[in-house]
């Protein structure tokens, strides 16, 4: 939907009245109704347990109270409006949901009682199941690995978990943090041993049963 036109193509020598062709692009932005998913808002409202998001007055309290909104490609307020209006792909591809640190400031401050953090969780799940999350973006990788580890061991082991995440996303980062890991190990705050519960079968059964019930429900 966005077509990017290089300014250079308009100017014979790549320059146009002080316009630096390299830095400035003209972006065409338009959205056609047919590109939108009309049922997206219902899907998310159901996943996030609340239709309150329909009542958003776009006041921006969430964005202003968010500690990381200035890094997001869409502020949380915009995300709510985009969800309401069915901008499914743009929302699921955005960095916003992965930057949310779940600090719940927005949820507490929202004057309309929208559980914005839960909306973000719903969007994270939706993005993972739609395969939309950025491949080398650490947050979803961490989430997935964490999930797998708890599924297998019942507990999470911070050392091995972080190692895996760094290896999968940015091996350079792991090297950068070697010093930190060493100090943690020295103060007895890090083991590379895997933690686990004694009765691992019970947890497997529990999660297996959830799967079975979900399948039955789907049928």
């Amino acid at each position, binding site marked *: 939907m966005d077509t990017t036109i290089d300014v250079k193509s308009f100017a014979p020598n790549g320059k146009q009245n002080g316009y630096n062709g390299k830095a400035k692009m003209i972006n065409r932005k338009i959205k056609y109704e047919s590109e939108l998913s009309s049922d997206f808002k219902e899907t998310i409202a159901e996943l996030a347990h609340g239709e309150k998001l329909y009542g958003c007055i776009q006041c921006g309290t969430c964005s202003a109270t968010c500690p990381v909104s200035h890094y997001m490609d869409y502020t949380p307020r915009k995300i709510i409006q985009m969800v309401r209006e069915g901008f499914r792909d743009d929302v699921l591809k955005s960095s916003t949901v992965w930057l949310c640190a779940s600090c719940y400031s927005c949820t507490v401050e929202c004057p309309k009682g929208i559980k914005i953090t839960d909306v973000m969780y719903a969007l*994270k799940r939706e993005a993972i199941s739609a395969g939309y999350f950025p491949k080398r973006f650490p947050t979803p990788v961490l989430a997935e690995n964490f999930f797998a580890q708890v599924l297998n061991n019942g507990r999470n082991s911070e050392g091995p978990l972080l190692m895996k995440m760094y290896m999968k996303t940015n091996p350079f980062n792991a090297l950068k943090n070697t010093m930190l890991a060493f100090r943690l190990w020295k103060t007895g705050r890090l083991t590379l041993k895997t933690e686990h519960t004694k009765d691992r079968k019970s*947890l497997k*059964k529990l999660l297996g049963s*959830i799967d079975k019930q979900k399948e039955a429900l789907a049928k």
Partner: protein
Amino acid sequence: MRYLYYPGCSLKSTGKSYEESLLAVFKALKMDVVEINDWNCCGATAYMAVDETKAFAIAARNLALAEEQFNKEEEIHVIAPCSACYMVLLKTKMFLEQNLAEKGRIKNALKESGLNYEGKVKIRHPLDVLVNDIGVKEIAKAVTHPLKGVKVASYYGCQTVRPYSTFDDQREPHTMDDITAAIGAESVDWPLKTRCCGASLTGTIDRVGLPLSFMILKEASKRRADVVSTSCPLCQFNLECYQDNMNKQFRNDIHIGVVYFSQLMGLALGIDPKTLGMNRLFVPPENVYKIMKGGEKVYV
């Protein structure tokens, strides 16, 4: 009253000194606290991002284990010191109360793994228990080495007071400051008590997470705090262990002790620093030690 204790994964690794100091303080205050048998991970925030029902199920397993262990009690009080665990367990309990269909599914699944969940569990944060059950007066009575002159910046972080807990004000919490006062120290009035430390972002996307931690420490030292007191293992980890990275990245010289509130309590109760896990700190709270020995504090 008897309490069950749910440590969570962090208190067994990076947050080891939180567990050590907290248990020592409980013991000093003569509280009856037992760890939940064979508990599992609460699921934290990451699990919620992948599968909600499963996230609630694994968290509910811990609640069921608590009921099994204290099956004779009318009301079971579970202390969850890690903010994330506390919030997740609380959320699970509330969610199951409101969504009966989901509760049914999870109860079925628990039954298949040989457990049952009735809903008798109350999730308590140690701050809640210490201030509301034990009381600041009792704590003050037990103090042998008051931390007179120590300026403490109480840092509650996000999930201790938000969004489900009701034991403290969500915007202007005061329980940790109450404890600070009870142990003879002085609270710093600052606006970042519940500002996010960056949580998992500090480890994953440090470009975003690190500045958040840095701003908190900078404000605390600007307001002349001798030490930052926390109630969350992740906050403590982010604020303390990344100080070198911060100083490198922001060309600064931040050097401020970040300890658990239970460690400060332990010092005031006269517990040996090693028992409190003070030796595990990267940045020992020098000013606190100096003041306790009657010396002059130094600001870097």
